[in-house]
């Protein structure tokens, strides 16, 4: 990434040698990303990250569909990331009028206690007017994987017009997206979840799917996303995705074993502890536990002081922890949801760290309960 902030500083859209060097890096990255995602290079639209990729998928699809006139509808699971839920809700409130989107009905589809989308409910939510369905590859909070092949079958049979989008931001490091998202028209990823830089992402727009641009301007990315290319970020995304693909099988086994060690230790040593979703249904990196009676805000402070960096749900703009919409959708009592903490493991996690963390967590929970 480094040369693109110094020696190869040129704008990739320019018409000189420096620009060509930058553009070459962008296009090489595009090929890498496309091949790892099972797409064609022309299907890849580079964005500023997952949120922008999701916005482009949601608003770009709605705007393209709105051109044909008539009422339109969209559906998503209740556990989608806010980057999908909020643009859909905003569009339903009329805020996408600037993109030509008129009346829009949005169906938020129920999930099971494990966080898996209810396929019957999905089928009922879809119709002739459905133009977009968005179901994430894996949930960012609890890690639950969604049955995208089955989702695609329901969508194709019940909503022939619909574009199927999946937010694969959380899954990309541990799931082969080339095979598992082959039935999706749109796929969002973000470099930072792969160990790459923050602020770089991509949306796969699989032929023959068409989206309207959300950002207008210089017409980069085949008129789908204007804005000067973040060459360093794009190279970082491709490099991170490549590194993840190379080590994926080993890492899934290694990280999964560490996760099991952490979960097993805590479930055995800390009373009244529950895991939010069964381990065979979630990403190997996710350990999502609830410690009954403990306030997650207090537990996070204790863990931070003990050197354990964990998280709880998602944060609002102020930084306060909000009650997890994911747990609430899974039927968890709001009070109980306040006792949840998410431990996310990664490629740098070691067994020593797991054992240290388990000790710190057990002690912190014990201290807060006494």
């Amino acid at each position, binding site marked *: 990434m480094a040369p693109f902030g110094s020696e190869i500083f040129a704008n990739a859209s320019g018409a000189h040698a420096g620009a060509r060097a930058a553009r070459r890096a962008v296009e090489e990255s595009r090929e890498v990303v496309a091949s790892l995602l099972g797409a064609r290079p022309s299907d890849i639209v580079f964005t500023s990250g997952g949120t922008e990729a999701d916005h482009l998928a949601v608003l770009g699809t709605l705007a393209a569909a709105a051109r044909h006139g008539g009422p339109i509808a969209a559906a998503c699971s209740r556990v989608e990331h806010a980057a999908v839920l909020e643009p859909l809700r905003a569009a339903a409130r009329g805020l996408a009028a600037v993109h030509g989107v008129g009346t829009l009905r949005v169906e938020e589809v129920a999930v099971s206690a494990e966080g898996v989308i209810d396929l019957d409910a999905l089928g009922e939510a879809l119709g002739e007017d459905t133009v977009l369905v968005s179901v994430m590859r894996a949930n960012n909070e609890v890690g639950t994987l969604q049955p995208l092949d089955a989702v695609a079958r329901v969508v194709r049979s019940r909503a022939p017009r619909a574009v199927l989008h999946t937010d694969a931001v959380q899954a990309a490091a541990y799931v082969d997206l080339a095979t598992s998202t082959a039935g999706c028209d749109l796929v969002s990823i973000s470099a930072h979840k792969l160990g790459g830089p923050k602020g770089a992402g991509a949306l796969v727009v699989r032929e023959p799917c068409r989206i309207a641009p959300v950002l207008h301007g210089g017409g980069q990315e085949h008129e789908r996303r204007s804005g000067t290319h973040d060459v360093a970020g794009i190279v970082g995304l491709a490099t991170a995705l490549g590194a993840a693909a190379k080590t994926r099988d080993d890492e899934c086994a290694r990280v999964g074993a560490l996760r099991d060690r952490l979960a097993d230790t805590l479930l055995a040593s800390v009373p009244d502890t529950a895991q939010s979703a069964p381990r065979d249904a979630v990403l190997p990196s996710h350990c999502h536990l609830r410690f009954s009676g403990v306030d997650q805000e207090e537990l996070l402070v204790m863990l931070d*002081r003990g050197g354990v960096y964990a998280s709880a749900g998602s944060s609002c*703009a*102020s930084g306060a922890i909000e009650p997890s919409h994911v747990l609430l959708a899974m039927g968890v009592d709001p009070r109980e949801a306040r006792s949840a903490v998410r431990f996310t493991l990664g490629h740098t996690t070691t067994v020593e760290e797991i054992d240290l963390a388990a000790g710190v967590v057990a002690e912190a929970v014990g201290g807060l309960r006494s």
Partner: protein
Amino acid sequence: MKVLVAMSGGVDSSVAAACLVAQGHEVLGATLKLWGGSSDSGCCSVGDVDDARRVAQQLGIAHYVFDMTEAFERSVVGPYVAAHAAAKTPNPCIECNRHIKFDRLLERSDRLGFDALATGHHARVLRGTGGRPHELRRGADPDKDQSYVLSMLGQHQLARVLLPIGGLTKAAVRARAAELGLRTAAKPDSQDVCFIRSDVGRASFLGERVELHRASVVDASGTEELGAVDALELVTVGQRRGFARAPDGRRRYVKSVDPVGRTVTVGTAEEVATLAVALDPGSITWTHLPLDDGAAVVAQLSAHGRPTAARLIGGADGPVLRFGAPVRPVAPGQTVALYDPADPDVVVGSGIAA
């Protein structure tokens, strides 16, 4: 000591945190998210949280945001609205101090293993030693003294509370913040009620939450009807604005508001003045020990009111403050802070006007 400092994003709590760091304490900053709706500093007061977080960065301390919106709604906003519906004038800052900062947050501070909770209030705590009680005293800056809004604290809380800037004037606080390069150094003091946006105002805020009732305005000297107000819930005892002068040109003030009879009684300063203020018996708090019946006190009837000598008399319906000379009427719901006549900087207790 391990100290949790409540950082609102204002200059006072910024400097309170800085003082604690300079004193060598192990300090952690926390900003409370109290209101989920819009406020003058953005949704959930995001601007204030950003300021607090930045100050914590500059001081090299960890900073957290604690979500206490549910408790705030239950213990502060709900009762604030209900009190107005009952034609009372509550003080939400005091209720926030009573139920949130010096109760829930203090409990949290204990659970997290802190030795003390600090805030940026302009008041002083004198830690009692050798069995002597802890004292709550007025702040060093007479114009900014906030002992009134802390007057409901008892020994249980004072034992664990630090008020690091109580010995500084506001000017000194701002100078210290500027010296440290804190972005809050020149930030204006907060005004009014934090959960009501200034461009919305109290009337609209309450109008969306309670039914407002028209009331007739009558003269205190007789039953002469002088007109009407649109919302008795927005009228405060002692209020002058919005009422016509007496025929002789003297100003008229609100003497009482009757929500049942839907009547607002007004009169001249002499007519509305009172020699006694009844206190809600359930609202009385003592900083240390209860005062004897008939004890002399110095009463402060509003946040920046003039301290006035009084006696606290036990009555059949609850305690009554009796004054030697007439005082302006106190709106029901307002807190009265009580000070020690022998040392009028020392808080002895508080009560809420009935």
